[in-house]
C-alpha cells in the first residue's frame, strides 16, 4: 500500500489536493486548466484566468477547497478514447488539455478523474474521495509560461501544500518561515552584498561587501590548494568553435551555450573550463615524473538557463567554478581521488557543513566505450569503499564524459545542495590527444579528473548566507568591527582606535555620525557586525575599548592591544 510515509505517498495525497484546488478555482473563476502536478513538498496548478488572480484571493480559493473536502466527493477514474477525450476538452474550452491529448498516440486509452462536477485529464492515482484531505494551505502565486516556453502564453501558477495532519502542516510552515528569514536574496539586499538587474538577467553583480566575502573564500581556496600541490592557470572566456567541436560540447551541450562572432568566425563563451585547460597541457612535454599534475582555475563560465529557473545566486547564468584538472598515471587515480576527497572534507568542516556523497553512473547521452565507463566507475567506487564513506548510487546521472562523485551539503534547515564533485574522464585526453612520456620513453595517454570543491562560487556564497543567516564568522564578515564613540568629544580617540585596527588589516568602520549610541549599536546589530567597540572618557583614559559582541552582548572593558590580539587569532583560525 502507498501511505503518506512512503516515498510516493505525498505525491498521491498532494496531487489530489491540486485537483481539489483546480475544482475550487473552476467554481469561482472563469479559468482554463494548464497542468497541476505534485512537487517536492507540495503541489501547483497552472491556470489561465480571464481576470488575473491576486494573492488576496488565495484565501477565498482555500475556503472553497474546504467546502469540497466537506462535501466528501468520491473520486472516480474514467477511461476514454483519444477522440472522446479531445471532444470533451473542446466542449469545455480546455485548450491546453486539448493540446496535450492531441500529442498522444491515437490508440491510447486516456484516463480522467472525476469528483463531483469537476473532471481532469490525469493518469492518477488519487485518493478515494475529497474528504480524505485533511490539512492544506495555498502558499504563493507565480507566473509560468505554458510548457516552460517563453513564446507561449503566460499562465498563473498557484502553489500549495498538503499534509495528513494539521501538526505536520504547521511544522512545515514554520520551517518555511525560517527559510524565508534566511533567504539569501533577502539578506543579500539587507547587507548590501549583491544585486541583479534587468540589464543582465541571471548575471550577478557583486557589491563591495559581497566582494570581501568572495575574496576571502578565494584566498582560503588558494592557500589550501597551494598546500595541496596545485598550480593555478587562467584561460580565456571566449574560444573558437573548433575547440568546442573537439571537446564535444558543440554536439552535446550547445543548448546551454552562448555564442558570438569574431572576424566572421563562430566563437562560444565557455560553459566549462576544461578545453582551455587541455590547451595549456598540450603546450609542453610531460613526463610521468611530473605526475600527478594538478592544474587549478577559478574560471568564469556562462551557461544558459531558462529565465523561469533562475533563483538568486543559487541558479545563475554566469558563475565562477573553483575548477581543477588533475593529469596522472592510471595507477594514480585512486590515490588522487582520495586526496581530493580529503581536501573537500577539510573545506566543508571549516564551514561546519554536514554532507553526503553520491556516485553517478553512465547517462544515456554519453561518449566513450562501455569498458572505459566500467573502469572509471569502479575506480571511484573502490576509493569510497576504502575510505568507509557511505554513498548512494545515481544510475545514469553521470556527466557525458565520465562517472562522478558528488558532495551534497546539508544546510541548517536540512535541505541538501550539490556543491563539490569529482569527475573521472578517460575521454577528454583522447579527444585532445594528450600524452606523456612514460618510463619506457614512449608516449602514453594520461588519466584525468575534473573536480570542484565549492562548486560554483555564487551558489556556495548563497549557501553560506543562508547557513549563517548573514552572521558570517569573523574571518568572512565584510565589516569585522564598528567603533562607536559616545559623543563628539570622543571621536579623536575613536579615530586612533580605528587607525590601529586598520593598520593591522582589520575590516573596521568608524561610526562618527551624530546619532545616539543605542541607535548606532542597533544598526550594527542589524548589519550583523561581529564586534562593536564603544569609546568614551573611561576608555580613552585607560586606552581600552568597551567590547560588545553581536550574539554575546556586552563583554566589558578590554585593553585595545589584547582585544586586537584575540581578534587576529580568531580570524587566523577561522573561528565561527
Amino acid at each position, binding site marked *: *500500500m*502507498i*501511505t503518506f510515509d512512503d516515498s*510516493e505517498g505525498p505525491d*498521491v495525497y498532494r496531487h489530489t489536493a491540486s485537483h481539489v484546488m483546480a475544482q475550487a478555482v473552476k467554481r469561482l473563476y472563469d479559468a482554463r486548466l494548464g497542468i497541476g502536478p505534485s512537487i517536492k513538498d507540495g503541489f501547483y496548478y497552472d491556470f489561465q484566468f480571464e481576470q488575473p488572480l491576486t494573492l488576496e484571493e488565495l484565501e477565498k480559493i482555500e475556503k472553497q477547497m474546504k467546502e469540497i473536502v466537506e462535501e466528501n466527493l468520491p473520486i472516480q477514474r474514467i477511461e476514454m478514447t483519444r477522440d472522446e477525450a479531445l471532444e470533451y476538452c473542446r466542449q469545455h474550452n480546455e485548450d491546453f488539455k486539448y493540446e496535450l491529448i492531441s500529442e498522444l498516440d491515437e490508440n491510447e486509452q486516456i484516463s480522467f478523474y472525476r469528483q463531483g462536477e469537476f473532471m481532469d485529464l490525469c493518469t*492518477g*492515482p488519487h485518493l478515494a474521495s475529497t474528504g480524505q484531505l485533511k490539512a492544506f494551505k495555498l502558499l504563493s502565486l507565480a507566473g509560468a509560461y505554458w510548457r516552460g516556453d517563453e513564446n507561449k502564453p503566460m499562465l498563473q501558477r498557484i502553489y500549495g501544500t498538503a499534509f495528513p495532519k494539521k501538526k505536520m502542516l504547521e511544522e512545515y510552515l514554520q520551517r518555511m518561515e525560517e527559510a524565508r528569514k534566511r533567504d539569501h536574496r533577502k539578506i543579500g539586499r539587507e547587507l548590501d552584498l549583491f544585486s541583479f538587474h534587468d540589464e543582465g538577467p541571471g548575471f550577478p553583480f557583486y557589491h563591495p561587501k559581497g566582494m570581501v566575502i568572495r575574496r576571502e573564500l578565494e584566498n582560503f581556496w588558494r592557500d589550501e590548494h597551494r598546500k595541496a600541490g596545485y598550480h593555478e592557470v587562467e584561460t580565456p572566456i571566449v574560444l573558437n568553435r573548433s575547440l568546442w567541436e573537439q571537446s564535444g560540447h558543440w554536439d552535446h551541450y550547445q543548448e546551454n551555450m552562448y555564442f558570438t562572432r569574431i572576424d566572421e568566425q563562430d566563437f562560444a563563451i565557455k560553459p566549462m573550463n576544461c578545453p582551455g585547460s587541455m590547451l595549456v597541457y598540450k603546450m609542453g612535454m610531460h613526463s610521468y615524473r611530473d605526475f600527478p599534475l594538478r592544474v587549478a582555475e577559478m574560471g568564469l563560465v556562462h551557461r544558459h538557463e531558462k529565465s523561469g529557473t533562475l533563483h538568486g545566486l543559487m541558479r545563475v547564468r554566469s558563475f565562477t567554478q573553483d575548477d581543477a584538472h588533475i593529469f596522472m598515471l592510471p595507477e594514480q587515480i585512486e590515490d588522487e581521488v582520495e586526496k581530493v576527497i580529503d581536501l573537500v572534507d577539510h573545506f566543508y568542516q571549516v564551514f561546519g557543513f554536514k554532507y553526503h556523497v553520491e556516485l553517478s553512473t553512465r547517462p544515456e547521452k554519453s561518449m566513450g566505450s562501455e569498458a572505459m565507463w566500467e573502469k572509471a566507475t569502479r575506480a571511484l567506487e573502490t576509493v569510497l569503499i576504502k575510505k568507509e564513506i557511505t554513498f548512494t548510487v545515481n544510475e545514469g546521472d553521470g556527466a557525458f564524459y565520465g562517472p562522478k562523485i558528488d558532495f551534497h551539503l546539508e544546510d541548517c534547515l536540512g535541505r541538501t545542495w550539490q556543491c563539490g564533485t569529482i569527475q573521472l574522464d578517460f575521454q577528454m585526453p583522447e579527444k585532445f590527444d594528450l600524452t606523456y612520456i612514460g618510463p619506457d620513453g614512449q608516449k602514453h595517454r594520461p588519466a584525468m579528473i575534473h573536480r570542484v570543491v565549492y562548486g560554483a562560487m555564487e551558489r556556495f556564497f548563497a549557501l553560506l548566507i543562508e547557513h549563517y543567516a548573514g552572521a558570517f564568522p569573523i574571518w568572512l564578515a565584510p565589516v569585522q568591527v564598528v567603533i562607536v564613540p559616545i559623543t563628539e568629544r570622543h571621536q579623536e580617540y575613536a579615530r586612533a582606535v580605528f587607525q590601529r585596527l586598520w593598520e593591522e588589516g582589520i575590516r573596521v568602520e568608524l561610526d562618527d555620525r551624530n546619532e545616539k549610541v543605542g541607535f548606532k549599536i542597533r544598526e550594527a546589530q542589524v548589519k550583523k557586525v561581529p564586534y562593536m567597540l564603544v569609546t568614551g572618557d573611561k576608555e580613552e583614559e585607560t586606552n581600552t575599548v568597551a567590547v560588545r559582541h553581536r550574539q554575546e552582548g556586552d563583554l566589558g572593558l578590554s585593553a585595545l592591544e589584547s582585544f586586537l590580539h584575540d581578534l587576529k587569532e580568531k580570524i587566523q583560525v577561522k573561528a565561527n
Partner: protein
Amino acid sequence: MTEMTGTDQSDQKLVNAHIFGFGTKQVRRGTTIHELLGEVSKKLQKEALAARINGKKVDLTHPVD
C-alpha cells in the same frame, strides 16, 4: 512500501490477493482495494492513499481482478 500482487485465474468468482506484509486473502472478484484493506487491517485501510498491483500504481477504488 508494501505492495500487493494479484490475481489468480483458478476460480471465476474468487481471487487470491496477496498484500505484502499481511498475507493472502481470498475475495470476490471486483472487490475494491479499499474494501479488501478493510478486511485485512482497519489501520491500513485508514492510512492507505493508493496501491500498487504488480508494480502499477492504482487508486484504492480499483477492483481486484
